[in-house]
């Protein structure tokens, strides 16, 4: 993982391991691993990981510009949602 270096990803935002080391069973106890997994899935379902996904894409696609800050990203995301709404079922 080519480090998001210049870009401060807050430690709390669960972007998994900064070194690209796969999360694996040898980090801490199985209970902690399970809790981490639950947290990751719960954040994913709520959509809290959108900025992490964006950074990951930025890293892979390697755009010329530095990535948006977290604040800018969320503004842009809600603006996009304003332009194309998603349905919710009954």
């Amino acid at each position, binding site marked *: *993982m080519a480090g998001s270096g210049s870009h401060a990803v807050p430690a709390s935002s669960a972007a*998994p391991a900064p070194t*690209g080391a796969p*999360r694996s069973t040898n980090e801490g106890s199985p209970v902690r691993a399970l809790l981490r997994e639950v947290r990751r899935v719960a*954040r994913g379902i709520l959509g809290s990981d959108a900025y992490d996904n964006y950074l*990951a894409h930025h890293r892979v696609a390697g755009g010329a510009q530095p990535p948006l800050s977290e604040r800018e990203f969320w503004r842009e995301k809600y603006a996009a949602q*304003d332009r194309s*709404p998603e349905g919710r079922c009954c």
Partner: protein
Amino acid sequence: MPSTPVPDTPDSSGPGSRGAATDVPPPAHVDPALQRAHRRWTPAKIALWAVIALLGGAGWFMLAVYRGESVNAIWFVFAAVCSYLIAYRFYGKFIEDKLVRPDDRRATPAEYAHDGKDFVPTDRRILFGHHFAAIAGAGPLVGPVIAAQMGYLPGTIWIVVGVILAGAVQDFLVLVISMRRGGRSLGKMARDELGLVGGIAAFVATLSIMLIIVAILAMVVVNALGESAWGVWSVGLTIPIAIFMGFYLRYLRPGKVFEVSVLGCALLLLAIVSGRWVAESGWGAELFHIDRPVLAIAIIVYGFLAAVLPVWVLLAPRDYLSTFMKIGTIVMLALAIVLVRPVIEAPAVSEFASRTDGPVFTGALFPFLFVTIACGALSGFHAMIASGTSPKLVEKESQTRMIGYGGMLMESFVAIMALVAAVSIDQGIYYAMNSSAAATGGTVEGAAQFVNSLGLTGVHVDPATLAQTASDVGEESIVSRTGGAPTLAVGLAGIMHEVVGGAGMMAFWYHFAIMFEALFILTSVDAGTRVARFMLADLLGGAHKRFRDPSWRLGAWLTTGLMVIGWGSILLMGVLDPLGGINTLFPLFGIANQLLAAVALSICLVVFARKGRRWTLLAIAVPMVFTAVITVYGSFQKIFSPDPKVGYWANHLAYREALAAGETQLGLATTAEDMRTVVFNTAVQGSLSILFVVCALIVMVVALWRTVQALRGQNLLDTEDPFVESEYFAPAGMLATPAEKELQGRWREHLERHPDKDLAGGGHH
């Protein structure tokens, strides 16, 4: 966006390159031979499936055949869950192998159009939760409650069998065809596959069906909150709570969605608890005791504002709250049913199953049971969700069974739980709550008299019981609280207070249930209004280009206003209906939703016929024809039935003639004014029935014609996106098989060397 990953070694993947040089990526799918080995039957597996089959069989036996003195709710859980497991493993797999034929060498839109925003390869378990949260709302909680009038068995059979053969198949296939087309919407696919006429009919059907669904959901909220100070206070507070969350996310801590959701949830509980103090104080009771017509207008105004405000203010934060509550409450309710194992009060098949004049909804079991329970068994609206967001997030084609088919099975289980909650309350209370105010007079005495006069065996209620139940749940009255939500709330309170809080917490749990249903519905109301507004803007854009510019405020207000007037007028009509509203309009909701399902299945039929499938098309054609029959026959009865209790036009004529004869009362309408209202309402309802069925019939006829053409080898359009070789791997099911784990390990190593290829950004899980 130049984000499509260009494979630098075009011939790299495929089974042939396993274990090749370091720079060649591992294959994008598990070797089929290994997969077959994994699926081989072992004695342990056979024993496991035999146990599942036996448990499920025992559940069905207890529900359908044995039906002892008292049936325990735990048998519903066994019957449903074991049926789902068998269906997922065998029928879902059959559809996957014979009809869908997923190809994991093919990149999904999330991979080839990866943009980090809309197109993101998403962990299958996250996407499962995400998809489920998007499809499940108040629908599966309401329909089964209303259908409980016919006893628990017809509803249970339809919910379980319907989902297995129809609902889950539709969700699965729509997800697949949209995924193969870059996440294209249902409307666009209808245009592509059916041509102009079919496309327009599908458009009109979708837009009008959306408006009626929003209107009837809003009516459920109005009925639940009318004359309930506690309910109005706690549900009303969700608006400032959501706005607070919106500002928190915008200005204080952007992106901390989980944190703000926990905070919002705590505030929500506080809003529920504080409702008791407000309702018991003189000023609170006075201020928040609001009549239903006023509430309806409040929701209409709210719906307009919520749809024109930027999403970050209200819609997005409330959606987080709703998702949080949805998953939490459903897990909680499942645990509570298993722990409490309530005893079922309703008969397996009630007297109303063979009659057409039930007080909760009218019409015979066939077809009206099948349209009353829409969401939970088969919901056409899901086709709008399954074509849209979810297909842009799927990592591998073979995951679609878990997400599409599996997600719908989960929703069906929610419907079963709602049914259990509704049939575990006393039958006398059930009928007192669900008969229209015109029948009960709105008083406990009138309700007791009406319910006891129904002449149902074993159903008897006295006014004191009704008054006591109302005071237990912290309401002034529970008589004629139609719409399903209050009944479900009484049932849920009856189950939950035995786990947490005892009798003193009944009122809390009741209002908790009302709150979470209202939360889903309000989210559906503004999301639905927004989607409808964009559909209308797109249509008007054909005449006046500027409508397609979303930043044109006047256009946005105009289109939103039109859509709000559309559903708002139906809502007001239902709320003011002298005959009760829910019992006349709910069948229209079900018919609309099922007609949309018939439309979606028709499109799937054409797509797979054009892909060269033959006999396996029956897996689509059978549920499609069944849906077509129940909805067309249901509409036919609503339009042509000479029985005024069933047919809109028969009722219309009966009231018109009575008015012409100078009468001032007929049936439940007691003034000439009311009678004129009935004449108008039945004309609107009858016209909507005609509109829906005509549009859906056009779509189905065009689809059948295209299918026959395809079977003869004519007009074989290929509307799929071109094949792109996948350079990505993820397991297919909830748990990875040994072969998948091994391949995942090789991908991890590969991506460590090539972090620039790591689309999921964080390794594979």
